Each structure stands twice: as structure tokens, then as C-alpha cells.
């Protein structure tokens, strides 16, 4: 199990690094998925089986599929990868790297200062997690359910085709629609509809 932990950890780090250096979005996503799966194994090895399973099901299985879906839907192609590669060049790296270096230094200092003692945590059952989740953390569960509801509504709203429709009416002169509706595209055309031929 120790070995599994270390191997998975190394895989996770390597694939994460590869993720942030790819210029092809799908390749980066694939590495990210690999990294997430490796993290799932790490979780399992650390004695958190429920979270490991959820990492696979939700993170790798749902959230990342969503990413892949959107990337596929945008269908960026090779040109985008080339642009991406161009953006990645040059010495723009400098500022972020500097900041991250300071951060890493600080974290390292923290880790080194605190003397970590080895201890075995043992497995935390799904049952334990569930009991704690619906016991002391009930408020958190409620809040995240509200957050998810908000996200659902927000995503639905953003995905609505209303804006296009309103503009479509004024295909030839969509700026006119903007001006006429006072900038309110959702109501654009509502006012002029009766006069339209």
C-alpha cells in the first residue's frame, strides 16, 4: 500500500505538471484526468475510500466530461493550439513564477518549522463520513445544495438562446436593436413587434 501511495503520488504530480504545460486542450484535459485518478488512488491509500470513489465518479467522471464536452463543442482545432503555444512563450512567466517561488518558500518554511510526527490515521469509513456529514455539518450540506441550485439556475440562464433570438430579429441591423431597446436585449423587439411587416 505504501508503494501504491508513492507511485500514485508521483504519477499525480507528473501528470499535473504535464497538464499545465500542454498547449492542446484535450491533451491537457487527459493529463488532468490521469492526475485526478492518481489522486483518487492516493486517497484510497490514505484510508479515505468514499472520497476516492467520489473523486473518480464526480471529478473525473462528471466534471471532466463536462470540460471535454465543452472543448469538443467549441471544436478549437489546431489553430487554437498554435495560438496557445504562442501565448505560452516569452518572459511573461516571470511574475507568476516569482510570486509562486515566494509562496513555495513560505510553505516550505512552515513545513520545516513544524516537526511532523508520523502517525497512522487508519481508515475512515463511508459510514462515519455520512454520519458526520448529516450531523454536525448539516448546515454545510444545505448551503452547498443551495450553491448547486444557484449554479444550476445560473448555467441554465447563461445557456438560454434568448439573446440570439432577440438579435436575430434585427439581423441586418443588430445595433439598431440595441439602441432601440435601450440596451436591453432581452426586451429588444418586444416594442417594435406590432409594426414589423
Amino acid at each position, binding site marked *: 500500500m505504501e508503494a501504491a501511495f508513492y507511485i500514485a503520488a508521483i504519477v499525480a504530480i507528473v501528470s499535473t505538471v504535464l497538464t499545465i504545460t500542454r498547449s492542446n*486542450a484535450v491533451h491537457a484535459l487527459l493529463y488532468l484526468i490521469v492526475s485526478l485518478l492518481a*489522486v483518487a488512488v492516493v486517497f484510497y491509500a490514505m484510508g479515505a475510500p468514499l472520497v476516492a470513489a467520489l473523486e473518480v465518479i464526480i*471529478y473525473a467522471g462528471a466534471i471532466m466530461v463536462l470540460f471535454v464536452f465543452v472543448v469538443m463543442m467549441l471544436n478549437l482545432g489546431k489553430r487554437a493550439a498554435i495560438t496557445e503555444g504562442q501565448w505560452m512563450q516569452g518572459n511573461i512567466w516571470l511574475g507568476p513564477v516569482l510570486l509562486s517561488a515566494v509562496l513555495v518558500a513560505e510553505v516550505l518554511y512552515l513545513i520545516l518549522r513544524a516537526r511532523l510526527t508520523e502517525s497512522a490515521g*487508519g481508515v475512515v469509513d463511508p459510514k462515519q463520513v455520512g454520519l458526520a456529514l448529516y450531523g454536525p455539518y448539516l448546515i454545510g450540506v444545505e448551503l452547498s445544495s443551495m450553491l448547486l441550485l444557484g449554479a444550476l439556475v445560473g448555467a441554465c440562464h447563461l445557456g438560454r438562446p434568448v439573446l440570439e433570438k432577440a438579435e436575430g430579429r434585427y439581423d441586418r441591423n443588430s445595433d439598431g436593436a440595441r439602441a432601440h431597446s435601450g440596451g436591453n436585449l432581452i426586451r429588444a423587439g418586444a416594442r417594435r413587434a406590432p409594426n414589423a411587416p
Partner: protein
Amino acid sequence: MRRNLIFILMSIEIMLNGTGVAFVAAGSRWGQPDGQIMFLFILAMAAAEVSVGLALVLRLYHLHHNLDADAANEMRG
């Protein structure tokens, strides 16, 4: 430097996941379920963030026909 919105979102996912690893590790260090619960909340938040974020990305792509984060600076004060 990343200017592609998709990559930025992916990076955020990585960071969230890193936080999650820290929480779970801390939880298992003490043998408590709290770390895992925090991870579950992070998971919920990530799901919410991704769904809204990707919907925004799609909308922005429709508007600007590229994914440059700097092109989407319409909300400047």
C-alpha cells in the same frame, strides 16, 4: 502565461483538488471524517463553479469568437 479561459478553469480545478488533497490528508492524519467532508464541499463547489464557468465560456466564445481572457474585460470599473 495562460490566457485561454479553458486552461484557466482547468488550473482552478487543479488548485481546488490540491486543497482537497490537503484536507483529506489532514483528516486521515487524525483519523477524523472532517477532512473528507471538507473535500465533499469542495467537490460541490467545483461542480457549481465548472457548470457556471463553462456556460460563461460558451457565451463568451459566441460573443468574441476566441477564448482570450483579456478579450473579456467588459466588466472593468
